[in-house]
């Protein structure tokens, strides 16, 4: 046992270092108030301080940090999207992730595994070719591979999928990775705290004060806070926040569920996704298979789990891996996905001066945590959104300039 750990074990006070300071009550005013202590809100606080020197900032979290979708996702990080705008954006995120453990001085278990999106039909193969070409054009490592290469990477996979849906090929994306999701939230929280931002847990925003089209403060369960700039980074709670400022958006909430098996010896090295079978799976560093499926089919603002989900998912898992029939599912859970019609996020300024939106992360926002924090910090600091997120602006809907990512985002989050 390392000496450092032993010292904690023997100490009466357990003086383990805290990740961030706890403050009694928020101050009367801040330059920037961030609603939501998920990865996105905390990353924005970190980059506001680090890149722009803006440190009079608080992050208000109604529960505990990372307790929203950040701590519920299946941690897949990739950039093999469909539109050049999307590929560029997510690629910038992957690049930050690759050095993030070092930057935050915290082991995020960032593990590059390679990512296969399996195609069982000719039309799926067509989408894979399309994505591969767009990816290559932008400089992202993706290519279409045949069944041989899939079998080499994952010999346990039944390529005929029990004869139900034979695999014709796949989109292989070398940078595809998994990471520790709560670590990302905690790492950014500590980084932001060290640079001077304040983090408040159990602090809920109950209203936002807008006068003459400008933000002037927020009401919380811990009192009123004056501010001219508010960032909403609340994922599944976005419609409740936008309602406070009478802002209409296309966002609707559907639950997204996931589950894990009991731990096994490592056997699955890659990340596998099948759109046709509505399955994606990877093996965590603890040995559990982490599995998810498509979105729940109707709107509910709840994190309830259903038996339908595990039944459907595991039956398709058995089509792919018949030998898993004795393995047990040990946990299942759900998050609330903030869905947009084009499967792209909504980021940037809004018609309300000083109200910034980082939302519409649906089933795909974990991988974007670093780059969304960075670009939202930039947007707030300059009161102007950088080009990288121009295609994600709220006004794209009014302009009928949607950023269609459904073909790359609907199952393989």
């Amino acid at each position, binding site marked *: 046992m390392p000496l450092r750990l032993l010292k904690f074990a023997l100490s009466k006070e357990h003086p383990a270092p805290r990740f961030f300071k706890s403050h009694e009550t928020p101050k009367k005013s801040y330059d920037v108030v961030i609603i939501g202590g998920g990865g996105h809100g905390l990353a924005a606080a970190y980059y506001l301080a680090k890149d722009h020197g803006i440190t009079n900032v608080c992050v208000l979290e109604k529960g505990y940090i990372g307790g929203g979708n950040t701590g519920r996702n299946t941690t897949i990080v990739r950039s093999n999207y469909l539109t050049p705008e999307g590929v560029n954006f997510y690629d910038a995120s992957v690049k930050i992730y690759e050095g993030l453990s070092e930057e935050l001085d915290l082991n995020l278990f960032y593990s590059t595994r390679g990512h296969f999106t399996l195609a069982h039909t000719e039309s799926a193969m067509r989408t894979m070719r399309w994505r591969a070409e767009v990816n290559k054009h932008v400089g992202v490592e993706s290519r279409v591979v045949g069944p041989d290469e899939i079998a080499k990477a994952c010999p346990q996979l039944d390529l005929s999928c029990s004869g139900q849906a034979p695999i014709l090929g796949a989109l292989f994306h070398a940078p595809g990775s998994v990471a520790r999701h709560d670590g990302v939230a905690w790492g950014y929280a500590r980084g932001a705290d060290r640079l001077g931002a304040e983090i408040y847990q159990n602090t809920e925003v109950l209203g936002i004060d807008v006068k003459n089209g400008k933000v002037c403060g927020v009401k919380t369960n811990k009192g009123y806070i004056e501010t001219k700039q508010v960032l909403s980074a609340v994922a599944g709670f*976005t*419609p*409740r926040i*936008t*309602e406070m400022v009478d802002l*209409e*958006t*296309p*966002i*609707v*909430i559907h639950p997204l569920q996931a589950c894990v098996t009991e731990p096994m010896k490592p056997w699955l090295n890659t990340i596998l996704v099948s759109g046709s079978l509505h399955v994606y799976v990877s093996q965590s560093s603890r040995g559990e298979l982490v599995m998810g499926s498509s979105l729940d*089919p*109707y*709107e*509910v*603002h*709840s994190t*309830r789990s*259903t038996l*339908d989900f595990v039944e459907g998912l595991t039956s398709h898992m058995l089509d792919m891996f018949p030998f898993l029939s004795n393995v047990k599912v040990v946990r299942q859970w759900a998050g609330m996905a*903030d869905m947009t*019609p084009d499967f792209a996020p909504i980021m940037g300024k809004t018609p309300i001066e000083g109200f910034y939106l980082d939302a519409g992360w649906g089933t795909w926002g974990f991988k974007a945590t670093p780059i969304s924090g960075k670009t939202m910090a930039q947007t707030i600091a300059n009161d102007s959104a950088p080009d990288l997120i121009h295609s994600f602006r709220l006004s794209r*809907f*009014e302009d*009928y300039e949607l950023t269609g990512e459904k073909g790359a985002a609907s199952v393989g989050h």
Partner: protein
Amino acid sequence: MKLLTCPMNGTRPLSEFVFGGEYRQAPDQDTCTDAQWAAFVHNRSGAPGDKKEWWYHSPSGTWFIAERNTLTDKVTSTYLLGQKDTTQEAGK
């Protein structure tokens, strides 16, 4: 198993139904502005609460209205469009 009551076929498993989105009224296309029309096409009332929604019973091809709370997922009534008086208590 979760159940839903089709006004034509009675109470059936939820897996027989398809969600059709919120019941909405289009603005008058001759008089509304482009911005109003774009808002109608794209925006939704995403906040939780009591909503009137389209649902479809797929084996029988029946479209109908359900009144449901999207926070609690409780259905209070289902009926054919325009026939609210024949309301059946649903989702018991």
